[in-house]
Every structure is written in structure tokens, then in C-alpha cells.
């Protein structure tokens, strides 16, 4: 649910450029401090988990426009530093197939990484506390998705004034920039109210779907974890 499905040209330039810069910075730091030999050994596993995430994302539940991410379980299996690279790869390939814009790759990598890294950390924590696989997996996935959805809403919220500009561009503001600016000044308060109303509408659509998604993905991740625990417990490193 935390994947930003916005196409190119909707988010303001400063926002998606910042997303790219922060993602590159984090990627550079992780790459600098990761053992290259160990990373090379894990590349096929990273590729395979990234491919599983892509396949999961391509199975769309049409009425609620929801798809599983498998990011939390990938985070648990890959660990926090590899999941960042995996989400970057996943977002590039998904963007090539129109699943979120190419300009949104940086922001999507950041929000999905939050999901993967939190999934890993929460799972380790709840496993230590509860010592039971089912509740630890479900709670970890639920809260990881909860956090990443809110980070996605935060990112979308940062561009609200930009969307309003796009939405109300055709409302007779005139052709010339001077007139446009003047109009903007006259209706500044009204525009702000409209922006807030539309953003609230967005949250009202996303959160109920999100709740459904968190529960659904929580259940699916838990069942997958149980399946893996039954057949290959070594993969979970418990």
C-alpha cells in the first residue's frame, strides 16, 4: 500500500529530485560500508527476492486497487542493508512497467525501504518478546505497513499545493502569467482550503483501503513465514 502509484509529472520537481538525492545518499553510504565480497555472494538471493516482490506487485486485486508488496518478508529474509538495494531495483523495474512513475523511483525506494527495514526490526523485536512466529510476523508486517503508508501519505501531502495548481489550471485564470499570479493572490485562502479538502479526501480513500491491505498482507506474510519455517527454517535465521 505504501508504494506511490503517482505517474510522472504529478509530484513537484523539488520533491522527486529530493527523493532521488536522499535515496542515492543512503545507497552510497550503505554501499561504502558493506562488504563487497559478502554483497556479491548475496546478489542472486537479492535478485530472486526482488523478482518475487515484482511478481507480488503485479498481482492486482482490482476492486480495491491493492497488491501485496512482500517487502516486509523480503526485509526479514534479506536484512536491512540489502532490502534497500532490493527496493531500488524493484522500483526501477516496476516503473518501467508503468507501476508508479520513473521520477517517483527515489521516493518509492525510501517509503518501501521503511517498510522492509521496519519489517525486519519489528520481527526481530517481537520474536524476542513473544517467541511465537505467527503473532510476531503479523504484528511486524502490520506495523511496518502502517508506518510506510503514513510516510507515503506524508510524501504526497508535501506536494498538495502543486496538485491544486494542476487541478484548477483551467478555471478561467487567463493566459498571461501576470493575471494568473494576481488571481492566485486574491484567492490564496480559498485555494488553501480546497487543497486541504482534496488532501483529506485522498487520506479518506487511502486509509480504509490501507487498513484492509495491512491486515491482508499481514495474514499473507504470516502464512508464508509459517510455510518457510516448516520447510526451510534456516532461511529465517531464528
Amino acid at each position, binding site marked *: 500500500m505504501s508504494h506511490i*502509484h503517482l*505517474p*510522472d*509529472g*504529478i509530484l513537484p*520537481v523539488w520533491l522527486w529530485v529530493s527523493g532521488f538525492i536522499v535515496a542515492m545518499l543512503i*545507497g552510497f553510504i550503505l*554501499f561504502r560500508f558493506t562488504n*563487497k565480497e559478502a*554483497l*556479491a*555472494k548475496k*546478489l*542472486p*538471493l*537479492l*535478485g*530472486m*527476492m*526482488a*523478482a*518475487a516482490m515484482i*511478481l*507480488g506487485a*503485479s498481482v*492486482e486485486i482490482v476492486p480495491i*486497487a491493492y497488491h*501485496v508488496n*512482500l517487502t516486509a*518478508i523480503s526485509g526479514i*529474509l534479506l536484512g536491512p542493508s540489502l532490502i534497500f*538495494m*532490493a527496493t*531500488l*531495483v524493484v522500483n526501477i*523495474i516496476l*516503473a*518501467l*512497467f*508503468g*507501476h*508508479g*512513475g*520513473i*521520477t517517483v523511483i527515489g521516493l518509492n525506494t525510501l517509503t518501501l525501504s521503511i517498510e522492509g527495514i521496519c519489517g525486519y526490526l519489528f520481527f526481530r523485536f517481537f520474536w524476542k518478546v513473544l517467541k511465537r512466529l505467527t503473532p510476531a510476523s503479523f504484528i511486524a508486517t502490520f506495523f511496518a505497513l502502517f508506518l510506510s503508508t503514513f510516510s507515503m501519505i506524508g510524501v504526497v501531502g508535501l506536494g498538495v499545493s502543486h*496538485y491544486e495548481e*494542476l*487541478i484548477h*489550471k*483551467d478555471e478561467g485564470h487567463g493566459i498571461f502569467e501576470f493575471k494568473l499570479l494576481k488571481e492566485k493572490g486574491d484567492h490564496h485562502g480559498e485555494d488553501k482550503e480546497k487543497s486541504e479538502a*482534496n488532501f483529506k*479526501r*485522498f487520506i479518506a*480513500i487511502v486509509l480504509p483501503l490501507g487498513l484492509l491491505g495491512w491486515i491482508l498482507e499481514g495474514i*499473507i506474510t504470516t*502464512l*508464508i513465514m509459517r510455510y*518457510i519455517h516448516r*520447510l526451510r527454517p534456516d*532461511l529465517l535465521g531464528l
Partner: protein
Amino acid sequence: MIQLSYLDYLAVEGKSFLHRLSAGWKIIGLLLALAGVVILRNIFGLLLLYVLLLILFFTCRLPLRIFSLTLYPLIFAILFIFVSGFQVHFILLVFLKVLSGSTGVVLLLGTTPYPSIFVVLDKFLPSIFVTALFLTYRSIFILLKVLEETQHALHLRGGFQWSHPARSLSNISNAFGHLIIKGIDASEKMYESMVLRGFKNKIHYRGE
């Protein structure tokens, strides 16, 4: 995603002028189209861009079956109909941006074999990252094959039925679990064979 192998087949077997054009030029072309999508804010300009991409699409003789791929991102754009409060101008703007972007990308993937794209990327991005990208792309084909086999088993166990949500969820989760375990097994075998063939953190493409 299922049509990925078909897209690859078209990219290798196609004979149009775009197929013959170098991957570097096509990537520059895609970047220009994306710049247009980001910068343009009027419907006329975007319509012009989309029509141009459509002309390229049909002159390359890419089949209509592939054209459906360009429409897929519209599923996500539907949300904007509600968010904008049914503002026709905005909805058209978003739909044209979505369609232009996806048509550009499908044009690139349908006319360029993927190793050629990775050769270009390797010049600008860290090689370990391009290797990860390449392995992911290869792994999609491996997993699709496993998925195909798993689908039969899933079907025999009842598959996905809205009338039995609990059983369906369990079936889907088992299928994904099976996919992950098979995938990890395959990745371990793939790594061993890569090492045997001299893999050292970088994949060398033909012609390098």
C-alpha cells in the same frame, strides 16, 4: 509481467528502424519523452507527445497485444478521478501523462533487447547495482516458470475463490511461500554456476 518474454522476443526479432537504432539513442529518446511528461502542463502538448509516441509504436509494427501493456498504469490513475473531484481537465492531463510515459517505456522495451539496455546502464551506474538489476530481471523469468507450475497445483487445491476467502488466502500464501523457497534454491544454484564461470562482482556483456 507475464508478457515479459514476448516483449523480449519482439525486441530481438523485430526489424523496424527503431529496432535497428542504438540502445543509447533510444534511452535518450525515452528520457526526452519523460522530460516532456514532467514539464508539459497543457493537454494539447501532451496529446501531441502521445500521438507522436503512438505513431512510433505503430510504425515499429509492434502487435496490439503489447499495446494493452501501455494501458495498464491507468488502473492506478483512476484514483485521481475521485481525488480531483471529477475535474475533467485534470483527469485528462493525468491520463495523458500516464499513457505517454508507459507508451515510451513499452516502445523502448519492445524494440531493445534487455542486455543492450544493461550495457548502456553499466556505463553510468555502479556495476554491482547493474548486476543486481540484471539478476532480478533474469530471476523474473525463473519465477514465472515456477509460478506456471505452481498454478496447476494451486488450481487442484481450489485456487482462488471469493466464496472461500480463508482457504484462498492460505492457497495464495502457500504458492508465494513455494515461489520464494524455489526461488532461493534456484538463486543458490545460479550463484554456484556463476562462480564456476568466473563471476567476480560484474557481469560482462557480449561485445565488451
